[in-house]
């Protein structure tokens, strides 16, 4: 597995810990169940902490704690299961989460751009993904009809810009 953060391949600073494992000294990602069970301790940590949500565990359940979370990891149990696209958008657009939103699980190259548009800034990808592959897939489309979490200008806004320019010129 490799981690791509904001388009760069980086070492994962975070250790994803099982519910029964001891917490490491440094950055750790825990399950929602563990977060809920050990919330006070985890909130008080000095080291960065993150929560991993499974499909069916909505961001609303940790909305109160986003101020303390460095990472929210959203699982794609199968690439067909697209719930996490909605979760990512809610984290960014509804709850204003500024930390890392990480895609984990069955993350395939043909979904990279959709994920980025929905607000994922970190993707846990297969070992065979190279920087070239990532660049190609993350940039397949350069025009977007609908607004999403990435704040990229939509076709509509580009049309409005063109129309305004035409009006100004004419």
């Amino acid at each position, binding site marked *: 597995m490799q981690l791509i953060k904001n388009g760069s391949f980086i070492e994962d600073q975070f250790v994803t810990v099982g519910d029964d494992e001891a917490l490491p000294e440094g950055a750790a990602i825990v399950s929602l169940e563990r977060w809920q069970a050990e919330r006070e301790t985890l909130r008080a940590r000095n080291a960065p902490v993150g929560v991993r949500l499974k499909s069916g565990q909505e961001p609303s359940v940790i909305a109160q704690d986003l101020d303390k979370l460095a990472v929210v990891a959203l699982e794609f149990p199968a690439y067909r*299961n*697209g719930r996490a*696209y909605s979760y990512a958008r809610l984290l960014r657009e509804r709850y204003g989460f500024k930390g890392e939103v990480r895609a984990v699980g069955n993350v395939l190259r*043909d979904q990279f751009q959709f994920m980025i*548009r929905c607000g994922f800034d970190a993707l846990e990808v297969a070992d065979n993904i190279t920087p070239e592959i990532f660049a190609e897939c993350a940039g*397949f489309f350069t025009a977007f009809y*609908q607004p999403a979490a990435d704040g990229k200008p939509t*076709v509509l806004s580009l049309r*409005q810009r063109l129309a305004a320019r035409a009006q100004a010129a004419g």
Partner: protein
Amino acid sequence: MYRYDEFDQQIVNERVAQFRGQVARRLSGELTEDEFKPLRLMNGVYLQLHAYMLRIAIPYGTLSSRQLRMLAHLGRKYDRGYGHFTTRQNLQFNWPALKDMPDLLAELATVEMHAIQTSGNCIRNVTSDQYAGAAKNEIEDPRIVSEIIRQWSTFHPEFSFLPRKFKIAVSGTPDDRAAIRVHDIGIQIVQDAKGNIGYEVYVGGGLGRTPMIGKKLTDFVPKEDLLAYLEAVMRVYNMYGRRDNMYKSRIKILVHEIGAEEMKRQVDAEFAELKKAGTLHLPLEEVARIEAYFRPPAFEDLPNESTELNKAVLADPDFANWVKSNIAEHKVPGYAIVNISLKPIGGVPGDCTSDQMDAVADIAEKYSFDELRVTHEQNLTLAHVRKKDLHAVYEALKKHDLATANINLITDQIACPGLDYCALANARSIPIAQRISERFADIARQHEIGELKINNSGCINACGHHHVGHIGILGVDKKGVEYYQVTLGGAADEKTAIGEIVGPAFTEGEIVDAIEKIVNTYLGIRTEGERFIDTYRRVGIEPFKENLYAAH
């Protein structure tokens, strides 16, 4: 009709390039079939019984002559010289090679067409009324909002991996020719007391294994809020739709399980948030920009009566019959709506050869402002023809076996490809439609019977819309033998109804006689002016059941 600007074209071109790369990686083995399948499905490529099948999108069923000529050309170049128009206003080619698809799609893109999202668990082609822009009681041309929805739903990053497929239909008149109440989202254009245009939204309709009629979630969404409302529905579905069982994954199941009230509550809550955020607010200038493409063509100022037409009707009884069944009333005096039947007696419903496509393209260009429509009943429509040109149009159509005078009559059937083509089918549907067509070929008899919609499906997926046929025929497999189950009383219009099963299934040898018995039962008990569906609604299923299953 809508014309791509640079952005629309860019998006389609980028998709063609992306798919070209994906096909190359599949052919080289870099992608396994399991990895490739969702990608090819999102590009409308199925693996069927004999070969691949490509489903090309025809947004809200509207085509220009240029586009139809391209389809004719592609059919000759990459397929076997014909295509099949579907119950979602799309076109299917049955024999294209995977290795040719990138080139085929590249050619298609040059005429502003594509096969994007015609399959897969995403938002599919938005379908609408074939009489758009021509119907007398139209509130607003439904293709305007259909185009707006098309753009919003194309490569929507949040909704490309839904629990299941998602189908949207729009109606712009009180008569529903788009079957909106059996779609995942059905939109009815309405006007409030002040004359503002808004939308009634129905959610959770559908056919297939568990047919259901959509529930109205809202009476009025203003135009500028429609996308925010739709996004709210989609988000609720994406998050809460079932993903554990493929047969329980449509939004209709979610609505059924949580109830319409709860669905409305959740959608309203999400809608309120999205409205507050304002990012999906639809600016009036953009609506106006799209509206401009659907402005009425330059109609001439004509008298409503046409002496040429009246003369021709008197002179030619076949033409008179064609006018009687295939012509619908136009809102502009002196004009008419022409329905082209793709149901020749004994023919394959909905099939159209490349030669026929070229002929229709020529006729549309000459007589109907260069535009035609595909109907969800697998026919074609020329929306704006001068009454004085009707005879010339008829003669031109006749040359290519396109003048069958049977619109809405018993031989105007819907049939899915069925076991002759489809890998999902349990039984053949086309031959049943053909035998029924031949049995009732006599035109006088067809008119005596009047309006009667028979819909044939080859399996429970119901692509032939049998649930909403006045008579529905569902092909089933009983111990390796094809049998046919009959339903009665379905309807796809604004009085949407799911047909009732009449009794045990019939064999291939029995089904046509069974249909004839049903027809004769109707003829025996109908009152003056009653169509089949009216009689059925009055008397119920019993008289039909009795006659069908009376001891032999």
